[in-house]
């Protein structure tokens, strides 16, 4: 086989998510009263990138065959924190951004330390830490409020050269600065290897623990970037419990739509980003077709179910039934 075919096979999940997103977005804009214009794209991008950041965070952990149920809560906590800190002079604002990102890193590092060194199951560990992170967020913002440096917020939620949504540019930058180096580093490969076969990775002398720790820690950072953007969009901090949970669950949905295997070792954050954008478009589609928003959860569920079923086809080829349970 030629090289490009291997590349294609590797990127199949990502390309499928891209295809689903483009199809859905094309239907959306062609039925939108204003059509495909910069305003429509900007609004969609601003809604989409929040989930995209959280889904990227989830991807890193899922690649190690783990799961992070605290991403939505880190997202909320950093939102609340940003509504206190990302204010004032440019200097103060910069320090505030750094502090918010540092808190995200710390949250992720705590998750990683508990899962890897404490040997707790990721699902339990992150439910617990997620509750703690939410609790801190609630103490910071018992009621919605606070503010943010509006110059920075407007710059990052507006448009670049009046065409491209700035939030998309920011998303691209984060992909280039965090995801690409991670996926090509030794630690990133260790994360993949640990997720695919931890025994084989151990036998091959791969730094499993460091790889997994890096994945959890960077997940915290990415969730914090999402939290910052939430603050830029809303100008407030709000410890909204339901919203945090929804982001956690939607991030898992986006990851699956994006072709990332929940069994670990396979998939890319870029796929998850398209998965997130596609998932977000479902609501917009209902809007242009004048459906009652009450239908949204049902449609999201159906689309997710269809996407997941596609991934289950491989089970039909299994010849030893015991492999169903591996």
């Amino acid at each position, binding site marked *: *086989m030629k*090289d490009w075919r*291997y*590349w294609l*096979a*590797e990127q199949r999940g990502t390309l499928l998510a891209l295809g689903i997103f483009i199809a859905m977005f094309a239907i959306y804009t062609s039925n939108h009263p204003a059509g495909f214009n910069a305003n429509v794209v900007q609004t969609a991008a601003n809604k989409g990138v929040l989930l995209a950041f959280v889904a990227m965070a989830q991807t890193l952990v899922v690649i190690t065959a783990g799961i992070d149920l605290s991403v939505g809560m880190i997202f909320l906590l950093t939102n609340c924190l940003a509504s206190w800190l990302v204010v004032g002079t440019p200097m103060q604002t910069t320090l505030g951004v750094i502090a918010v990102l540092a808190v995200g890193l710390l949250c992720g590092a705590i998750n990683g330390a508990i899962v890897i060194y404490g040997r707790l199951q990721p699902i339990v560990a992150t439910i617990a830490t997620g509750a703690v992170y939410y609790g801190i967020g609630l103490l910071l913002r018992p009621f919605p409020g606070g503010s943010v440096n509006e110059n920075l917020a407007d710059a990052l939620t507006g448009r670049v050269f009046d065409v491209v949504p700035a939030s998309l540019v920011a998303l691209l930058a984060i992909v280039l600065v965090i995801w690409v*180096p991670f996926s*090509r*580093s*030794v630690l990133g*490969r260790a994360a*993949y*290897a640990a*997720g*695919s*076969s931890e*025994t*084989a*990775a*151990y*036998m*091959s*002398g*791969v730094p499993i623990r460091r790889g997994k720790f890096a994945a959890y820690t960077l997940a915290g950072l990415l969730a914090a970037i999402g939290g910052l953007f939430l603050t830029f969009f809303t100008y407030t901090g709000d410890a909204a419990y339901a919203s945090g949970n929804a982001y956690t669950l939607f991030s898992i949905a986006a990851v699956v739509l994006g072709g990332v*295997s929940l069994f*670990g*070792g*396979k998939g890319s954050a870029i796929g998850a980003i398209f998965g997130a954008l596609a998932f977000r478009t479902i609501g917009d589609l209902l809007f242009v077709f004048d459906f009652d928003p009450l239908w949204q959860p049902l449609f999201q569920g159906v689309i997710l179910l269809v996407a997941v079923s596609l991934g289950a086809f491989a089970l039909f080829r*299994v*010849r*030893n*039934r*015991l492999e169903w349970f591996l």
Partner: protein
Amino acid sequence: MDGAVPLLRMEGISKRYGGVRALEKADLSVTAGSIHAILGENGAGKSTLIKAMAGVVAPDEGRMMLDGREVSFASPGAANKAGIVCIFQELSLVPELSVADNIVISDPPKRFGMIDRKAQRRIAEEALARAGAADIHPLALVKDLPLSRRQMVEIAKALARKPRILILDEATSALTAADVSKIFAVLKRLRSEGLALLYISHRMNEIAELADQCTVFRNGRNVASYPAGSKSDNEVVELMIGREYSHIFPPKPAAAPTTAAPVLEARKLSWADRLHDISLTVRAGEVVGLGGLDGQGQRELLLAFFGVLRGLSGQILIDGKPVTIASPAAAREDSIGMALIPEDRKTEGLMLPMTVRENLSFAALDRLSKAGIIDRAAEQRLIDDMVGLLAIKTAGLDIPVGALSGGNQQKVVIAKWLMRQPRIILLNDPTRGIDVGTKQELYLLMRKLADAGAAILFYSTDYDELIGCCDRVLVLYDGAVKRELVGAEITERALIASALNIHDAEIPVTQGADA
């Protein structure tokens, strides 16, 4: 070699797993520029020895000297750094990564802190070419390759690490003949380049072709070391045999019941590339053994009968009538009445956190319940019977089964199936890791069940058991029945010879030429 110090020396290495001793003061010396073959039966301690050498297990006592300096390895990575690279029987490849990713996995080439994919590709192509496997594409995912290609990748991966000592543990078991000859050429070249190679194989002809030096292991000890070719196959087999203890087996019936109609029969059973044209019969009252080296298809054969494998070809007959067994649930139905005592009781036989009572009644729940409600009194009676019959030692029926000893856990697995009064009992190496006393009880039970009319198919890796328990033994090699031994023909010599696929003619009692 000129009388230099050995490259690696292991002295007095011991290792115990729980109560089982895997190695007992074993010694081994490896010299550069030679191929050293390690021989021994299943469980003789070969695998543990090389695991200790490769940093996978830490020995309980003894020392290792590399270049005359004492070393110890905390992990496989540490052993790799010292130049000791092992190709394990269970492959150590990461399935979701590409061939190239796997080949460089322990030390990928880096550029600006990131993995240099071009360099990685180049290293992978070189290594594949050196291993004679240039047909494998470096970008292919390992999970998409067939087993024989994966093994070639494993070998390429080992070569890419530039080892000083290369250990091959049954590394050719899945290879085609063409690949084996390529690998042999590679190994001989490596020897001439001054590497030390340790070669573990059950294939006598391979050892005869490759090895310079041989060491035989038995019961966790090295019992003999000799230059290759200085002993006949016969003598080697003698060295591998000979145990210090013997079990007490129940007497067999004078003559096997050859007249009874077969209860279980297979005709030309084949599955994927693991089972080839297997035909066999098991009669009521008969204990039929499955012999051979570990992993020659015995486990798959039992799974095939029990309805676990899909895409079987050939026929399974129960009481002379062809049947299709679509699942374990179908296999245990009264019309078939089959039970499988699995190899891995912890995952396939028991729910460890659940109670003894619950575990015992799982398989028979449908018989003990009416309209979905369990008849507690009937359950209790049956459980009491079984606990009595098997003498299960437990502090109570309501403690988790995980709290019992290994032997008693295995009794629970067997009792669970006996509660259905099966007519056909398949046993997959049931005595692995249990104490001698419990083993004896199981042998007695097996014979008792056969006398009561059950047809028993019994796979064991322990030759003594096959000799002591079975009326007939079928020896499997590479997924096919190589030989059937009946009654007095079942001897350790015959079992080992046919397991190694040497014909009797090749191991005459008198000295023959080397193979």
